[in-house]
């Protein structure tokens, strides 16, 4: 088979050739079948190109039909008005084609594809790849720029930028650069750059050091030291929040917040540790340990332990509540067992056993009063069992961290020290030192310290 070489202006008919070289301005007037094609000048093939070996374009080549080759190297520019299929592809210049299929491409220049791009092997983009259609590839590394409709790739790593106008499906994904997609479903996800998903994100274990935003996100283990913004619902396995998270609703398993997390709607979580800040409108969690600050519209938990600050605009419900820090509730605090040694301000504190304040919250001053008997409204009150001296209002503070105030305190057993309340109702009630109570209604045992002020006592016998 004879070779074809065009060095100046020239044209040749289509057909079968050996090696074809265009150094000047050359035209092949029909389909070209050849061993190899090298264009150093300007070439135009008025048909399809099929090369058994290499196609190398250092100048400019345009083909009006499809192109198939073993290997394609483009240092100049090539435009194929049809699909391009090859094994090896190296683009240092620019390539434009209708559709592209290659095994292992190396993209340092720019590729623009009108349709789909399918890479059967791994893909590395240092330059630019733009497809109006879909991208499919093996392991994919994007250091340059990629813009596609839908993308389905295996392991995925981006330090450049990638825009997916449709769905992104990937294996383990690492994003140092910028990625945007309408929807994304990936295996493990690590974002130290930026990932913006305008629709839904599904991922395995997810680590966010950079910025991640999505309308809805469902991930497995979640660790955030950067920023995660979910405008809709967030679902996660165990979540560790050192950075910032915001969501409209969130459902997570174990939750640990040492950074900040804000849920404008409902939060549902398993054991929850707050060292940082957590806020939610309605929260239902298993065990809440709050050493930091938590603010809810309403809270339901099985157990609550507060060393920091817990505030609710509504109610707080738990089986057990223990507070060394400070709790405030605009509504009702309800728990089987309430133990508050710190501060509390609430409308109502109700339950089975309530103890607020500690016995030594009043100071022992002197021992001159032996009597623990006095009467209120003509009712004799026996407080003889605690004759260990009289305490003064030594440590009553108001307005400070350890303010203890409620409109109503009501439980089967109530013990109060340094508490202000309008009404206290209980079966058995102990009013220790430092209390100011409007009205105590007690059917069982009542003990009132002399160093407390109780305006009215209602006993069953007094009612008749």
């Amino acid at each position: 088979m004879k070779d074809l070489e065009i060095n100046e202006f020239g044209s040749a008919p289509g057909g079968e050739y050996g090696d074809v070289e265009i150094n000047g301005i050359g035209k092949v007037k029909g389909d070209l079948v050849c061993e190899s094609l090298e264009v150093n000048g300007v070439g135009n093939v008025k048909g399809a190109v099929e090369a058994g070996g290499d196609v190398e374009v250092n100048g400019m080549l345009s083909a009006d039909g499809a192109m198939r080759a073993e290997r394609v190297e483009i240092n100049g520019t090539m435009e194929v008005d049809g699909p391009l299929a090859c094994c090896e592809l190296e683009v240092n210049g620019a390539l434009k084609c209708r559709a592209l299929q290659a095994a292992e491409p190396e993209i340092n220049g720019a590729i623009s594809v009108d349709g789909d791009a399918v890479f059967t092997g791994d893909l590395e983009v240092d330059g630019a790849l733009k497809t109006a259609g879909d991208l499919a590839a093996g392991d994919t590394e994007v250091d340059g720029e990629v813009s596609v409709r839908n993308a389905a790739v295996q392991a995925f790593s981006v330090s450049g930028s990638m825009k997916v106008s449709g769905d992104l499906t990937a294996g383990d994904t690492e994003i140092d650069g910028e990625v945007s997609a309408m929807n994304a479903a990936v295996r493990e996800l690590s974002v130290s750059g930026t990932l913006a998903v305008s629709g839904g994100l599904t991922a395995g274990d997810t680590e966010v050091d950079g910025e991640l935003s999505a309308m809805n996100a469902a991930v497995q283990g979640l660790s955030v030291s950067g920023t995660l913004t979910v405008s809709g619902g967030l679902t996660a396995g165990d979540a560790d929040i050192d950075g910032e998270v915001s969501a409209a609703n969130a459902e997570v398993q174990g939750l640990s917040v040492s950074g900040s997390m804000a849920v404008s709607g409902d939060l549902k979580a398993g054991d929850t540790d707050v060292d940082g800040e957590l806020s939610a409108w309605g929260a239902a969690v298993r065990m809440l340990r709050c050493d930091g600050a938590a603010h809810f519209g309403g809270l339901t938990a099985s157990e609550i332990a507060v060393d920091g600050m817990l505030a609710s605009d509504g109610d707080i419900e738990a089986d057990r509540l223990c507070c060394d820090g400070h709790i405030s509730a605009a509504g009702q605090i309800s728990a089987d067992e309430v133990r508050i040694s710190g501060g509390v301000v609430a409308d109502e504190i109700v339950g089975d056993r309530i103890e607020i304040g500690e016995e030594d919250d009043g100071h022992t001053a002197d021992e001159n009063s032996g009597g623990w008997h006095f009467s209120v409204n003509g009712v004799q009150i026996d407080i003889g069992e605690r004759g260990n001296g009289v305490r003064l209002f030594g440590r009553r503070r108001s307005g400070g961290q350890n303010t203890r105030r409620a409109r109503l305190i009501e439980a089967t057993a109530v013990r109060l020290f340094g508490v202000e309340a309008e009404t206290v109702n209980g079966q058995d009630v102990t009013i220790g030192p430092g209390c100011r109570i409007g009205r105590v209604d007690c059917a069982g045992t009542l003990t009132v310290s002399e160093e407390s002020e109780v305006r009215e006592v209602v006993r069953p016998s007094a009612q008749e």
Partner: protein
Amino acid sequence: MGLISKKELLQRTGISYGQLYRWKRERLIPEEWFIKRSSFTGQETFFPEEQILPRVESILSNKDRYSLSELSRMLSADIAPGIVEETALSGMEEIAPEVMEAARREKPGEDWSLFELSLLAAVTEAATRLCVAPQDLPELAALSLSAAEGGTLDAVLTVFFVGDAVHALIHGANAPLTFDRTIRTAYSVSLRETAEMLKMNHRALFPALKGV
């Protein structure tokens, strides 16, 4: 509606504050039943007597057999409202046969939601109280179903006569009706209470109760 104060409730039933509030947290006693009224001692809580007393009784009599959350599923109509298959309905005596027949004509071959069953049971109860003639029952059932489209359990069915014609009205639980003087007989049934009664009486029919 008769009210009973919290203190009186505790005295009469022998339950403790702890139990009362535990049951409230478990939604065994609906929050709406805690009615706050100001009194000379400040604020006092009252309960609708006809509702709270049977509720406390049924909790007390079941609490040793079931866990509180199981009880909550059984007593609260909000949790896991059941869908009952048509074939399982034969033994539901709270719904008059004429009412059930009319309902089947309205919705042939379909399953029934707790809401619909409660409505049909409420129709039956109201009709019994008002002595609605048996031949008027199908019409009343059909009217009620037509008024109940997309309704919730937070509603009351009121049945009344205009002249000799019987009518049904479904309205919000917190919107008591005042009729003009031509309407002499009216009877209202809470759908929620009816639903809770159905759930208690027919545990086997409701999925929430499986495995209990």
